[in-house]
């Protein structure tokens, strides 16, 4: 019987079925972060339970770490207890921690693939909704809550209901300065914030095939913003080349054996999906959100929509978004004055994201009155960016260049905007108050964010580069 890629990974990892009908799915790599891990450590201690596979479990400090150069445990006072608790909990339970000063510290979803910890066809879990980022290398990842995290620590499995399968066919050649972020925002706009609820989404098609691995990760990262249970891309030669030689990737004969297995990780020709969607990406322009959920998206040349053009079931959401964002229907997005730019987060903080941004910024200055910051997704990304001189490009232009972490994505480390500020952000959620009380977030690609920092207005990067903005 022909199977999808998802079916192959699920079936391999199926340990058994529990008495309540749930499938027990083995988790090959489990990564904790400090915001939630303390709940699990407290449970283990109270119930006198042990971690079943500390050798397959990892931990990072990412949500609460300060980004200020020279940071330590105390730089963000509201994070101190979390960092210390993580250090103590991982020590007691024998878990490898990528601590605040580790050369591989960073955002879990950036670090795990970067060190080669997650592999094609592997299962992965993180107590964070953006876990599926690593679907970009063909891994099947699940975000989970604190109780499920504890469950995985004790048993190394998740008790899940088998999700449905969706294929998103993305075809067409992307225009200059259009990237995975724009594709993902368009897809979320088409399907809605709950459009993929209950599904594992396989991203396929020529657009995806042409994407570098980092962009595939951006695409899979945003899967949760349309409600998806997980999202992934079938691994190909590009994936294998990207993984080769990374510290946790098998070597020599083990590599050869793994590679021949990984080549079977494709959806069979006649395999059936529960739902198929398609987006023609050939004509796509840079996309940006205008509202307060990630489906409220227009092209950069577009305007804040007229309620008449909005589905009536979405009117009340649009009304409150207009008010919160301080926007009137019909207002063009392009040219809207901004106060802040954030380039970073598990969505868009990998080296190519910074390269694209730096290419826009090089030789230019951040507009007067705009606070602009770049926060690399990992200490490794930061190191590589610095080796390439990108930090100088950003700093010379007037950007803050920070230490790695989640930073202003959810503001868990104190990096936040001021009330009323309008911010172009490469992150994943434009929810009210997320980047600070009353901060108005517009989600966009690194290129759009960089261009907007330079002009001080929401900007079509293509026009800036051609001298027309």
């Amino acid at each position: 019987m022909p199977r999808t890629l998802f079916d192959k990974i699920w079936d391999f990892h199926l340990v058994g079925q529990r008495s309540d009908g749930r499938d027990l799915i083995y988790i090959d790599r489990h990564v904790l972060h400090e915001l939630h891990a303390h709940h699990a450590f407290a449970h283990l201690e109270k119930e006198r339970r042990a971690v079943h596979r500390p050798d397959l479990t990892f931990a990072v400090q990412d949500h609460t770490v300060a980004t200020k150069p020279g940071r330590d445990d105390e730089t963000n006072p509201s994070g101190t207890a979390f960092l210390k608790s993580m250090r103590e909990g991982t020590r007691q339970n024998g878990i490898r921690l990528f601590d605040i000063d580790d050369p591989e510290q960073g955002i879990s979803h950036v670090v795990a693939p970067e060190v080669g910890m997650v592999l094609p066809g592997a299962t992965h879990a993180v107590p964070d909704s953006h876990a599926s980022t690593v679907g970009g290398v063909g891994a099947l990842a699940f975000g989970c809550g604190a109780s499920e995290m504890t469950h995985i620590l004790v048993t190394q499995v998740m008790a899940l209901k088998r999700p449905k399968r969706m294929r998103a066919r993305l075809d067409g050649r992307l225009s200059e300065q259009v990237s995975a972020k724009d594709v993902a925002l368009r897809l979320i706009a088409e399907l809605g914030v709950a459009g993929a609820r209950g599904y594992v989404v396989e991203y396929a098609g020529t657009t995806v095939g042409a994407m570098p691995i980092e962009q595939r990760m951006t695409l899979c990262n945003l899967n949760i913003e349309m409600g998806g249970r997980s999202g992934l891309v079938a691994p190909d030669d590009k994936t294998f080349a990207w993984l080769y030689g990374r510290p946790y990737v098998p070597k020599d004969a083990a590599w050869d054996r793994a590679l021949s297995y990984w080549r079977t990780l494709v959806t069979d020709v006649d395999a059936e999906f529960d739902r198929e969607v398609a987006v023609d990406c050939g004509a796509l322009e840079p996309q940006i959100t205008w509202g307060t959920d990630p489906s409220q998206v227009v092209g950069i040349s577009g305007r804040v929509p007229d309620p008449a053009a909005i589905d009536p079931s979405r009117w009340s959401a649009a009304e409150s978004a207009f008010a919160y964002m301080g926007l009137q229907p019909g207002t063009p997005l392009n040219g809207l004055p901004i106060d802040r730019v954030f380039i970073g987060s598990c969505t868009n903080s990998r080296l190519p994201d910074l390269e694209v941004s730096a290419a826009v910024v090089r030789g230019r200055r951040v507009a007067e009155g705009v606070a602009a910051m770049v926060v690399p997704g990992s200490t490794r990304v930061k190191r590589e960016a610095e080796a390439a001189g990108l930090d100088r490009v950003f700093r010379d232009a007037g950007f803050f260049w920070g230490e790695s972490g989640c930073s202003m994505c959810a503001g868990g480390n104190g990096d936040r905007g001021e009330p009323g500020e309008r911010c172009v952000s490469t992150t994943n959620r434009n929810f009210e108050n997320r980047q600070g009380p009353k901060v108005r977030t517009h989600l966009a690609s690194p290129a759009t964010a960089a261009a907007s920092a330079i002009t001080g207005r929401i900007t079509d990067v293509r026009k800036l580069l051609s001298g027309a903005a």
Partner: protein
Amino acid sequence: MQPFTSHIAVAAPLLKDDINTDQIAPILHSRSLKEDYRAMLFHRARRREDGSEDPNFILNKPQFRNAGILVTGNNFGAGSSREAAVWSMLANNIRVIVAKSFADIYRENCLQNGLLPLVLEPPEAEAFAARVIGVDGAAPFTVDLVSQRISGPGGADVAFEVAAADRSRLLEGLDDIGLTLKHMDEIAGWERRAAAAQPWLQTAKDSR
């Protein structure tokens, strides 16, 4: 986990779609390992700009102060996996959420904590919401998981259905980890098979 059999409480209508975890349980500026989950629930929506209570927010209205059932729209609990968005409900004695649909992770988090995520299909959901608005907190509803019925003022009983597996787990208050621990032999067997079939999955070592 505290078992769930039935719950008698006032039902409060919060009839919006896509209420997200940042709204339910915002990440606040100052935090500690021991959070005040009771104060966290809808922290921003409950307050006006000067920090005082907003009397217009539904859970601040006198008749809904002790509401123990929340009635809402589609895709409730979208966003983060933060379980605080469930704990903050329980800290306020809200043990039932009636919605048209739930975000996947939020629903799982509810089941882990004995909070009943109850889905009504659109025609019944709308009729029930209208009824809850009409009753306006004057009398409580009873949500009974044994008979799978909601009864209360203003109309006939409403039948609902919770998947048998989830239902028995809630009714018995079963420890999820305990359920899985019965399968440790199978897990060990899987590990042996995986170590032979895809050995790279069963070791994770930095080769440097």
